């Protein structure tokens, strides 16, 4: 088990290296001069030249990358060209909001997906199954920005039940915090719930037709015991892997949801930094999100290996 985890950790290193190259090139090969985008029309030629030097744009691309990588290996993500704040400070300032939103969205997704997916599989080809499948199809097709705006218009503006934006820290005002969190978490959680529900439905359908379930049933075990002890436990193994992938979707989707709901997280920071061409912040934030995603996947794989010993042996 230890060797398996170590091997997976070592596999992450080249993945992160390649990511760093992609992130760097993606920004630096975009046409245009970010010095103009950052300083605007009010800047003197001297200010533009000084910023280009400070950003290292007067150096060859390979040198710029090497310098950034060296800085990165020392744990330094640099400073924002716009605000002058260290990128780490900005990330730590915004990260709690993104974690709060993503975990709440995931919780909502699980709360919807678990009963939905199970019912849909157990009542296969029934009215319940068609309803759940239909809901999932709609939830997966609806763009999150549209759903977000619709909820703001309906729940916040028309009904006045919940605030349309902003975040209140939980310790400051627990009830207020939940009120502000609900709409963005639902918006982000609904498409995830649909994907999760479909995974669960497929996995349960596959498991309940297996021999060991038939054997358990033949032994006269109670249906709920068959479901929870034999079917669900095995069906959850692929679902756990899917959850790891869906976390990536959560982090990606938060850019849109954080913008619609004015949620002060990493996604919104990333968007504003892209608009301001604040390269160091964009690079730092994307890399940070990638590390989080890779770490979650690593944990998922480890958990998967723990739940299903065949994974460890197959990979030897």
């Amino acid at each position: 088990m230890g060797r398996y985890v170590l091997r997976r950790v070592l596999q992450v290193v080249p993945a992160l290296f390649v990511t760093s190259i992609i992130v760097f090139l993606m920004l630096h090969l975009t046409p245009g001069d970010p010095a103009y985008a950052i300083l605007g029309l009010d800047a003197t030629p001297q200010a533009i030249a000084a910023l280009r030097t400070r950003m290292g744009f007067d150096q060859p691309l390979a040198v710029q990358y090497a310098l950034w990588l060296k800085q990165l290996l020392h744990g330094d993500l640099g400073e924002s060209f716009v605000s002058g704040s260290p990128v780490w400070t900005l990330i730590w300032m915004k990260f709690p909001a993104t974690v709060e939103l993503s975990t709440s969205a995931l919780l909502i997704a699980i709360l919807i997906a678990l009963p939905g997916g199970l019912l849909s599989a157990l009542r296969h080809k029934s009215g319940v199954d068609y309803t759940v499948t239909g809901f999932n199809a709609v939830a997966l097709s609806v763009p999150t920005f549209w759903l977000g705006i619709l909820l703001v218009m309906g729940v916040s503006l028309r009904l006045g039940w919940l605030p349309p934006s902003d975040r209140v820290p939980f310790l400051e005002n627990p009830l207020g915090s939940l009120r502000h969190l609900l709409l963005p978490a639902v918006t982000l959680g609904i498409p995830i719930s649909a994907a999760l529900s479909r995974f669960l439905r497929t996995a349960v359908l596959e498991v309940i037709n297996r021999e060991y379930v038939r054997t358990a049933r033949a032994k006269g075990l109670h249906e709920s015991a068959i479901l929870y002890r034999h079917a669900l436990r095995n069906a959850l193994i692929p679902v756990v892997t899917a959850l790891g992938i869906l976390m990536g979707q959560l982090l990606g989707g938060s850019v849109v949801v954080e913008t619609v709901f004015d949620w002060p997280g990493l996604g919104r920071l990333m968007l504003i930094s892209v608009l301001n061409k604040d390269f160091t912040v964009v690079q730092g934030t994307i890399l940070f999100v990638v590390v989080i995603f890779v770490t979650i996947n690593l944990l998922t794989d480890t958990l998967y290996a723990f739940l299903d010993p065949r994974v460890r042996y197959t990979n030897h």
Partner: protein
Amino acid sequence: MDRNQELRILREQLGDGVITRREFINRALILTGSLAAVSALLPGARPCLAAAAAGRQPKPGGTLTVGKAGDFTTMDPHFRGANNQSAHLTSFDPVLRYGKDMKPVAELAASWEVKEDKFLVKLQQGIKFHNGRELVADDVLFNFERAGDANVGGRLVDFTKPITAVKVPDKYTVEFTFQGVPEVVVELLDSMFIVNKETAGQVKNRPVGTGPFKFAEWAPGDRARWTRYTDYYKKGQPYVETLVQKAYTDSETQLVNLQAAQVDLIEFVLAKDVERILGDKNLKLVKANVGAFWMFMVNVTHKPFDNKKVRQALNYMIDRKTISEKVFFGQSKPLVTPFYLQTHPGYDAKFENYYTFNLEKAKQLLAEAGFPNGFEATITGFAAFQECKNFSQVLMADAAKIGVRLKLDDLPSSQAYPKYLAGDFDILNGSQGMVHRDPVAFFAMNPSTRLNNNITKYSSPEYTRLVTDGAATRDLAKRKEIYKKLNEMILDECFLLPIAEYPKFSAMRSHVQDYSDHLDGFPIYYGMWLDK
């Protein structure tokens, strides 16, 4: 039929469903010229605009939350730019400020006088910076030198050029020696917000000035927070205890938050949302004339625009009426000349219809210029401005009818700015300002009208002579004569083609009282208070 009769009929037509609410607003605006008057005429009308609070005792306290379009890029007031100006009016004060009537108003100054080529300013005594030190004349000198340093980075450097010397005769007096008209000094003192010398190195993200609010925090990409400066020199002001400025990346989110009472005021409203705000009984709208206009610029060295007749033909191809109605929802008056304000020395009513939409005339001019079958050209644009894209498309569709094939190259700012500054375009869409300021500023600062490094590449000995004479002549009658000639020259040469007025709309919840704004349309927070 008089105006009141027409308004009454319009109101009846709205009530009977003969016209839509939008049609009512647009037509009533033409008759009244005032959004306040129009909103009062709407069914369920309520008192609108800041005047509603006139004469009432301000209530101190509370938090004023303001939504702004985009985050700050710097809080250094010597580095202007639309996104940053609302930070300047919180932490800093200018020495003088232009009032709406274009007469100077004292801010940090106690008095001022002009003697030949000298402009003497006496500062008020006892004004303190947020760090506790008293403001003295040396601070103004320091700020002048800083604003004039190109390495600091802002275009304020251009404002300092007509000032040849600055002296400090005593602790509270500053003496400016200037070239040309004294307005050049007023322009500088209005635009140069006073930065604290000791903390100038951190002004980008920790501003310290004498202004009504002290900087508390800036969470980039989210919000900036300011607290009331209790030692502010305008006794009793500011009224609100805390000011929060929230950055929004999307105009829809900003407006929804205003409607849902998450913010008290939004600094910038798109023309398309005016009707929606007027229809909400909890909101008030302010329209400010900020001396700006939407326009096309033409590079006069690029073929075929090196031929004046082609540029004039282009002017005849612009359907300003349609653009005003469809692109700006009737909120922007169509314009032909940049000097559209009646108070401007170069204004002349006879120029108002110098060009009309006339494709036949355009075709005739093109034939005379040797392009009877039209030509191809590119309009370079800033992708961030949807309005520019829309009015360019109106021109493209009309131009195509007479064989002129225009292509729109809509670019992100990182690509558009270098092209703009280098004059690397056939036609460029965008906006220009400073019409409400002294013409000296208009001809010194605007890239399309300045003498040096004019991005349209237009120049002529007569143009240079008139611009130089205008900046040196103090006699008002002579100045009017000069600027009218310049107005006619811009119309004839067609290197700058105004399209429509560019007003600035702000909106607020009805409890925000005594709203007023700076000449450039940004809120002056120290006089505002919350009635809730």
